[in-house]
């Protein structure tokens, strides 16, 4: 018997030495394999593995920038950004609640002994119920009706705007699929919950304040503020300014990302905005600014964990328009007063521009829309409301109309330049004029008798123009209209002008390609047959195939005021106070030009435009009543173009109203009050500016 040593444990059987070496060898090989592998990964592959690890554990969140402001020529803010307070749920922080709710639902299902257990659906429902409970609490706090919660038993307020009161399972599913790491938005805009129409701005501020002060600070519900486009003047210049819509095309600040070698990481972004119409669209690249980004580490479940790095977004550049908001408001206000017997606003347009610079002071179109209601979410109802009213069309630049008697200015100029008539020639103008087999009527049943140029312009005599138009001939008449640019695109987009924004009128989708100054070739092209003298007579009074826009006619008025043939309109204000580049002269003798201007002045003083007469402000104008077909029946367009003051023109204008079948629409009578209101607003402003610029003149 061997004596056992205390404290030592001996193997019960001796181990075979060879086997022991074998085991050692096996372990040594394993150890070497692990060591070499570890070393290889640490020393050789570390860079690559680090990149893989980072790309799996980090992500970049792109932050949209604030868009630039848009001002009018006086520095009044037309488009701004306002704080939008939204309430969001941190889904990562709600995981425990989701789990508890899920287990509760699961237990209930099991107790019900349901045939099949759809666990995914149960999870979805659990998330929805939890979020709904939080949403109820938010509404409970922000709802004004809960001002005094006298009862300790809280009641969820009545549903008034379902869109914001309930968590939509589809929205939640979409969020989890596409933006799981980002917080889930429960209330998009605290100040304007729901459609944004139910509350006044004051009520909106109260809702924000109630949430901030009453809702618990700690917890999974976060208050976030971002910026949203706002149009402080509501519908003012809506067609010019345009609106913005959601965009996923938001480019990151690429240079930043390349510098930090993060371009391979997963990227997520909040919805940005892009211009959808008007200046917002044409100057989108300037206004939108540069996006920022945040670098986040993420949890294994895919939620954001810690913010590691941040690059702030940069606001876009500001734009200053040539518009004067006071004149614009006057134009829109005056247009909105012209209504049909049912009280519906008649479609129309009004333009006012500076004669010396070509800058547009007002560019109004009715019906219109409120871009504030389009800045976030457009409801189908509001979209349809605008669509049904024809509110999307910017009639000033997109509406194509026969100019009617306002074209008689061009007919008269063509006649005088081609020496078929002179300023003092008197033509016999009866109640109608026969061309071929057809009598072309005068709008005055008794006719005007002996008519010279001045009288023609004052009373808008048709017969004088039939005669002069036929004597001039279609070719010359057509050439004259083209000389005044009636079929020339006026509206250059920024891209056309190599970023020289001063050169751009820059409003999207103008009617450029659809402008028509007809000639025999055009009539043949559209299958209308051979050109007839009747067509020439029609063209002489601005009817027939001729189609142009109110802005073009305003430019004609501005050109006549400067004794030139072309005016280039600008919507961007030249802060250096530039002048119009100039154009070819009209080519009339002094006597002819003087008579032309005198006739236009008489139109307001005693002729068809006298409804627009303003005591103390003599101005020149030409009215027009053109026929157009609506639903197969004849209706009338009311026109008035001109410039003011008569002696030293400073502004030119054009007003158009689309008469309806049941309205009594006549040039001066319908359009005159709009012109009057615009000029009455402009005149005091001009006098004040004049006094500031030339103080000596005041003495």
């Amino acid at each position, binding site marked *: 018997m061997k004596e056992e040593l205390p404290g030592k444990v001996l193997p019960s059987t001796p181990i075979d030495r060879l086997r022991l070496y074998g085991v050692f060898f096996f372990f040594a090989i394993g150890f070497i394999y692990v060591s070499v592998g570890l070393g290889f990964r640490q020393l050789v592959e570390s860079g690559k593995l680090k990149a893989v690890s980072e790309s799996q554990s980090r992500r970049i969140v792109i932050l949209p920038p604030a868009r630039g402001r848009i001002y009018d020529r006086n520095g009044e803010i037309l488009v701004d950004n306002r704080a939008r307070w939204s309430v969001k749920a941190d889904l990562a922080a709600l995981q425990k609640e989701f789990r508890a709710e899920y287990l509760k639902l699961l237990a209930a299902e099991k107790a019900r002994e349901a045939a099949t257990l759809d666990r995914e659906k149960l999870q979805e429902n659990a998330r929805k119920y939890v979020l709904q409970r939080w949403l109820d609490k938010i509404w409970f706090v922000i709802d004004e009706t809960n001002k005094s919660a006298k009862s300790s*038993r809280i009641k969820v307020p009545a549903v008034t705007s379902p869109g914001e009161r309930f968590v939509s399972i589809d929205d939640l599913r979409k969020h989890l699929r596409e933006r799981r790491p980002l917080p889930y938005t429960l209330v998009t805009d605290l100040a304007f919950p729901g459609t944004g129409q139910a509350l006044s701005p004051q009520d909106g501020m109260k809702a924000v304040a*109630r949430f901030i002060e*009453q809702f*618990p600070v700690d917890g999974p519900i976060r208050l976030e503020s971002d910026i949203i486009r706002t149009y402080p003047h509501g519908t003012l210049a809506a067609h010019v300014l345009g609106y913005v819509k959601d965009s996923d095309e938001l480019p990151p600040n690429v240079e930043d990302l390349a510098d930090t070698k993060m371009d391979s990481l997963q990227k997520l972004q909040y919805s940005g905005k892009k211009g959808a119409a008007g200046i917002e669209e044409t100057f989108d690249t300037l206004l939108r600014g540069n996006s920022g980004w945040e670098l986040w580490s993420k949890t294994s479940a895919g939620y954001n964990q810690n913010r590691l790095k941040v690059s702030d977004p*940069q606001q876009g550049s500001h734009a200053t328009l040539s518009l004067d908001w006071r004149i614009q408001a006057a134009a829109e206000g005056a247009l909105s007063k012209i209504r049909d017997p049912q009280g519906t606003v008649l479609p129309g347009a009004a333009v006012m521009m500076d004669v010396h610079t070509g800058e547009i002071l007002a560019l109004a179109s009715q019906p219109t829309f409120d871009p504030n209601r389009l800045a976030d979410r457009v409801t189908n109802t509001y979209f349809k409301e605008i669509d049904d009213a024809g509110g999307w069309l910017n009639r000033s630049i997109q509406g194509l109309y026969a100019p009617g008697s306002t074209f008689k200015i061009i007919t008269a100029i063509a006649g005088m330049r081609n020496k078929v008539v002179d300023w003092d020639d008197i033509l016999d103008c009866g109640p109608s004029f026969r061309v071929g087999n057809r009598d072309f009527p005068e709008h005055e049943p008794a006719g005007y008798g002996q008519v010279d140029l001045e009288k023609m312009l004052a009373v808008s005599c048709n017969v004088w123009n039939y005669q002069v138009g036929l004597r001039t001939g279609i070719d010359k008449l057509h050439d004259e209209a083209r000389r005044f640019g009636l079929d020339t695109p006026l509206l250059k987009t920024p891209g056309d002008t190599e970023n020289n924004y001063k050169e751009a009128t820059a409003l999207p989708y103008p009617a450029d390609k659809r402008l028509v100054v007809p000639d025999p070739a055009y009539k043949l092209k559209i299958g209308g047959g051979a050109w007839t003298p009747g067509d020439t007579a029609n063209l002489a009074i601005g009817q027939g195939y001729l189609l142009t826009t109110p802005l073009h006619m305003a430019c004609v008025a501005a050109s006549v005021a400067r004794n030139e043939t072309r005016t280039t309109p600008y919507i961007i204000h030249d802060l250096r106070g530039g002048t119009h580049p100039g154009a070819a002269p009209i080519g009339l003798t002094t006597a002819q030009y003087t008579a032309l201007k005198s006739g236009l002045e008489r139109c307001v003083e005693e002729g068809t435009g006298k409804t627009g007469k303003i005591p103390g402000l003599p101005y020149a104008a030409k009215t027009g009543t053109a026929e157009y077909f609506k639903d197969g029946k004849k209706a009338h367009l009311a026109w008035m173009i001109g410039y003011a003051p008569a002696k030293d023109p400073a502004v030119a204008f054009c007003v158009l109203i689309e008469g309806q079948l049941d309205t009594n629409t006549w040039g001066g009578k319908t359009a005159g009050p709009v012109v009057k209101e615009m000029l009455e607003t402009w005149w005091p402003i001009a006098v004040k500016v004049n006094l500031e610029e030339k103080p000596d003149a005041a003495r």
Partner: protein
Amino acid sequence: MDQNRRGARASYVALTIFLAVWIFMPSTVRRFNREAFTEFQAPGLHLVSKSRDLARFWELKSRSSEEMALAGRDLARVNAALELKLASLDDVRRENTRLREITRYTVPADYMSVVARVATRDSSSWWNRIVIRKGRNDGIRPGAPVIFGNSVVGRVTAVHLTTSEVDLVTSPGFRCTAFLEGDDQNSIVLINGLAGNSLRTPQARISVIPNDYSTGTLQSPKAFTTGMGGVFPSRLVLGTVDLDSKATKPGSSFKEGRLNPSRELYNLQEVSVLVPLHQNPGEALLQGDQFQ
């Protein structure tokens, strides 16, 4: 030695068992324990605070008659100045009363004011919380605003039987809306207490300040409560504003700033708790009521 080791081991085991029991204990029991502990130490807080008051009383009592005479003279001057101010306010008061009578305007009493002595400052959150010597027995409810004169001190966050805890304006748990002096647009800005830092004066952050806001000629523009949130009455002073160009992100649409609370906040002896006469929704949420 072995016995010592065994004793040490036993204490570790006991601690582990206690922690395990504590962790797995129902939250109601834990809450009860915490509450019980607070109530247990409340008499101590009262005693310490009252002793401090007594000490102050005797300190003042031991002043020499010369010192008292000087203090009396200073007080007389202050009194005279206040008398003058009061006289100038008389006309305003009379006009106010006349207008109220004409319009039959009755001032709604939304709050009940409860005056309370400060028992102690809670050092656990870097002096951003105070404990006052009034509690549930005195009608104080959680969420109630606490003021000193015309300045906001903070909000009641927890109420016990005879004491209440108040989060100061500079506490991270404090949040309210404000209007800034000199802002014609009256835009709402957000005030958030900043986390305490022992080496710096406690401050609060002001965010979402409109970009076009500037202090102009105002040396230290004030931030006032909006009165819109249903918690604080309007026009109470929150502190003075420092626009923080470093905290404002370049190209951002909003500015950021710092709120410096009034100096009294650091040396408070007495405060007023404005207890709302009607419970507001936020208070109901704080109390954890059930939703239907």
